[in-house]
């Protein structure tokens, strides 16, 4: 078998395997299960523990900017 045929056969095999693998992920909702049970709880913990600025401590300076009135 020439090199080109071997390469094509190998390529088709890899594509087929990739398709079968992805189809299994799709059909058994493995993406959803991973996201719901692993990724989201991990991210939630991260967001819950994040240091955040307390915006309530920002002074509400109402005179800081002009009124932006253009009706004169």
């Amino acid at each position, binding site marked *: 078998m020439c090199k080109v045929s071997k390469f094509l056969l190998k390529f088709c095999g890899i594509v087929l395997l990739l398709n079968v693998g*992805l*189809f299994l992920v*799709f*059909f*058994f*909702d493995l*993406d*959803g*299960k991973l*996201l*719901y049970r692993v*990724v*989201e709880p991990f*991210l*939630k913990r*991260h*967001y819950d523990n994040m240091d*955040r*600025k*307390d*915006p*309530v401590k*920002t002074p*509400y*300076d109402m005179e*800081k*900017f*002009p009124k*932006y*009135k*253009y*009706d004169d």
Partner: protein
Amino acid sequence: MAKKDIKKALRDFWYGKPHSAEEGGRRLGELLEDKTQLYKHREWRGVKDTLYYFYMIWGYNYLHMVTDIIKYSNNPIDFLKGTWRYRWMGQTYLPVIHWFDRGLQGMRGEALAASAWHYRAMVSASIQQMCNFFNADTRLHHGKENNAYRHTILAKETTCGTLFYPWMDAGYRYVPIEMIPYFVTCHVNSHTVLNYIDAAQSIGLPGDPCPMCQAEAGIYVLDDVPDCSPMAITCNEACDGSVGTAILQDWFINKPLFALPLPMQFDDPLVKKYCMKEIEECWKFIEEQTGSPFSWESMVKRLELQNRLQRDEWEKWEVAGKTDYYPVNGVAQALFRIFSTQYGIQGDFWLEASEKVKKIMYKCVEKKINPFPQTRHRVIAWSCAPLYYSNWCTWAYNCWGLNTLINMDSLMFDMEMRTDSYENMLEDMATYHMWAPMRRMAVGGMHHIFELWEYMEKFNCDMVAMYDQLQCKGMQGVHGLFEDEFRRRDIKAFWMPHALPDCRTVSRAEIRSLINDYMTTVMHEEPLDPSLLDFDDSMTW
């Protein structure tokens, strides 16, 4: 196995199981895990539709979520940094494909394909907005105010994107503050928004106003809004609750801010004149802040595209109203329309999706394909929908054969904009601005709430799904008027109580139970798929 059983098994494999229980039913409820509603395994829709879903929806959208980031982001690393920094980003972006699953459950053939194209456009528009946020966000760029920051116009999500077309040719981008952090999250992952509602109440704000206004304030309280623009524009949409939000935003944004009013009594010609003047003042504010002049060419170019999208929609409505061949399901119709009309023409995704859907629709018309063959009732949904259960109409079709053809949100911006002169454009712009979401036929739309009857006739509907937003004081005030009219006109209608984004007030299960009760006790009908009658989805996205 008997020959008959083998034949049925082969038929089910090739075409998918039939819809109704009488035909041996597909029992969709049994495919899902209790509480989380994750699939034990995804639905087998027959060879053709399963492969379509696998390649053209699941695979295609995962792939395009990545290519969209590359397309719209100045640096894809910023997207990752944004995901790490913002809760609404991480929790929303990941379950997107499961948002498709919920909306497209049980769909087959043309209904599956057409509805999915609407979803695709919405995902693309969302990614564009996320990238606009992160390209400009000083928090992701060591406090630096870069070029994208200086070219971003930040506005409240209910300030229509149409207003900002004149600056788009000069490279400015409109970013609606809450459309992604609040609105989209509720649909995709209903858990996220609860953090923001609770945050608003944690600083002592009352819990009884509209939870939308609370959540929009809450994203600021939790310091979860990108710092992406040197200015902001707010408005009072939908009600006085939003005025409260806008005051908090003025406080927390702490930058030049223009408050653009949205009149409640919008039918008054004098009010319209006032509104036109206010819009012009807003444009002057933008000119002053950006140093870039109003461009008529930029405005006209995009208004023409917007008008094209509107004409597309009218074509679709014509088919939806007069035939059984309209292929888009209730949730895909509603979300595509409210998203596209509010965000405006900021890219080519809306028109591309619309072209694809029209092609599918005309195929249905030509070949007389009914994409929803189990329709028992043609439903119009009125008032504001539960964001955490926008896919209720997919469930209602699968379980009861209720086909939601159209809804109030889709019908709000039912107009073209004139581009023949500045004066005409401005007048139409004021109308469009005043016909805002939750305004034209809801809060403030006192002369328009009963347009329901006209649209019922136009879309040939025989049933009304009446949303009942329990924390909307405006619409609560007209509850009794609708009750009276339903009785007087002998219209079949069921009420659907909810609290807009907050799934804790009225659960999805309670909503389903009310519809089940109506369908059994009033309509005396049997469910098409009994496995969908009662299930626990309390922990689902």
